[in-house]
């Protein structure tokens, strides 16, 4: 039963993602109809060719597709990490950055932009952001742990405090940023500039295997929704499982944020909406949320590019996501943990 239901949702969402991606690749200063996008993409396969103009082929394959693919893989990662965090905290208000991942990444990124340090292949920025993200998450975890146990409430509050502190560090750096301020601000709003296949591979290489690793733990996530004591009593090693889930979700988030900047709301709203649609069972919720997150961010990115002046995608996700979230809040009872 559940296999059929999961399969149905996954096929449907994958089709939605493909459709959104096709339309999105046509959006921009040069509008290209979806049919032509499709023919260009298919022509990359051996034995097929296209009659699309060469310029359009270049735009789609070299400019638009990497960008669409990056949005997809980042949305996939953030939504999956958000699902895990919400299950972990038994709180539908948890988001992937709740333990300070985004704030840590912001400190790392802004530091690199302001100081002008650079590494070969432009890796300095993502590397610093990734390192900052992991340091922040690990720091929060260590602060919240006592005697081998990590109470969820302490973790949550330590996360809030560390995020505030790191926010102050970022603000301080911005005040002294000088000419780097524009780049820094764009990064903090979730920029999509300079999307390359290299960045896509970078995020995918980290996020996809880790999300696959999470799948065998979806039953444990379900049991954790019962509360720690009950989860333990049905046979889940609560402390060890939670440690693993927190680490994996944080690394996934860090990888996405390091490459794409801070993009709010995807990891909060997508799992939340999917929970209303498919129910709380993580065996179906995790994969469907990941796919829905990919489709949502690809669509948001298309909207960001559609206007006369391009917007950072973080603005679009927040502007669309927040009112929708408030609508849900007023119209459906949000289950409280």
């Amino acid at each position: 039963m559940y296999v059929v239901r999961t399969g149905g949702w996954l096929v449907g969402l994958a089709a939605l993602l493909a459709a959104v991606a096709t339309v999105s690749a046509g959006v921009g200063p040069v509008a290209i109809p979806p049919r032509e996008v499709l023919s260009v993409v298919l022509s990359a396969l051996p034995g097929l060719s296209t009659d699309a103009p060469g310029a359009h082929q270049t735009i789609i394959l070299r400019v638009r597709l990497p960008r669409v693919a990056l949005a997809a893989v980042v949305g996939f990662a953030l939504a999956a990490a958000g699902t895990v965090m919400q299950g972990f905290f038994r709180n539908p208000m948890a988001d992937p950055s709740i333990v300070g991942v985004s704030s840590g990444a912001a400190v790392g990124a802004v530091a690199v932009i302001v100081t002008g340090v650079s590494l070969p292949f432009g890796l300095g920025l993502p590397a610093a952001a990734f390192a900052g993200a992991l340091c922040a998450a690990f720091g929060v975890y260590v602060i919240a742990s006592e005697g081998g146990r990590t109470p969820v409430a302490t973790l949550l509050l330590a996360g809030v405090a560390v995020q505030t502190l790191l926010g102050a560090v970022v603000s301080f750096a911005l005040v002294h940023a000088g000419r780097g301020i524009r780049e820094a601000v764009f990064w903090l709003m979730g920029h999509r500039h300079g999307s390359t296949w290299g960045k896509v591979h970078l995020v995918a290489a980290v996020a996809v295997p880790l999300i696959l690793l999470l799948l065998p733990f979806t039953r444990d996530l379900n049991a954790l929704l019962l509360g720690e004591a009950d989860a333990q009593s049905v046979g889940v090693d609560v402390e060890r499982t939670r440690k693993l889930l927190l680490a994996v979700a944080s690394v996934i988030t860090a990888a996405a944020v390091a490459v794409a900047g801070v993009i709010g709301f995807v990891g909060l709203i997508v799992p939340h909406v999917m929970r209303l649609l498919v129910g709380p069972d993580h065996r179906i919720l995790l994969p469907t949320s990941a796919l829905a997150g990919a489709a949502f961010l690809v669509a948001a990115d298309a909207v960001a590019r559609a206007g006369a002046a391009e917007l950072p995608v973080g603005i679009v996700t927040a502007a669309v996501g927040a009112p929708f979230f408030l609508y849900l809040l007023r119209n459906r009872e949000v289950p409280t943990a």
Partner: protein
Amino acid sequence: MTDPALRVDSLVVDRGGRRVLDGVSVRARGGDVVGLVGPNGAGKTTLLRACTGAVGTESGEVRLAGADAATLSARETARRVASVPQEPSLDFEFPVREAVAMGRTAHVSRFGRRGPEDHTAVDRAMERASVFDLADRSVTAISGGERARVLLARALAQDTPLLFLDEPTANLDVNHQVRTLSLVRELAADGRAVVASIHDLDLAARFCDSLVLLADGRVRAAGTPEAVLTPKALADAFCVDARVSRDPATDSLRVTVLGDRDSTGADGERAVERPSSGDDTVPAPRTDGRGTD
């Protein structure tokens, strides 16, 4: 002689700098229903939680079906003992069948799927706890009594030789109290050992083979209900002036509390010994001393 399903020896537990259990020893064999009774804060819940490893211990030993509980993994523990918690935490909209199936967690490989024997166990557990009709309802949309039965079904699906119940009758109406405890007796008759903390002394006396009276983290009395529920022990543990009689309908013990021990006389001992209704020894049981109806 084989090991009992549960053997607790000289267990000591500290929580928040306070000694909560101080040298507690308990036995439970297959077929037994052991009732934990005692005042609030006596350590009943802590004892159950310490036995499953949910609470750390200072010293002493817990053996679950012959194995030292301290050396068992969460999974191995869950295959030996199932717990029905006092406060159900079923906030998320899982169907009843799925909530019960979570009891199979320790039996299913992480990478495998639930097999036919898991589905059979879940069906049987739901049938046993009379929640089969609710299988497709959401756990958030059923009554408190039904939720209590769903948790019992989850514990049954765990298929363990030992069953812990923490206040199984709290929050239930009289009908469901008796139905639940009658089911508990049936489960013991199947060969399980059941340990239940029960506030209601009359129900404890009626449905348990033996009682353990806890107060201030120590065992004040243990044995048959007749041996444990004496006016002296009740005065000692609960600070009450109580009379013990035999209920003509169930032929089990009935505890009547007359008042706080301090309010019935300046001297507590004297209040207990005061011969108000003749003797306060327990009349002899008619049959085996417990009603099973």
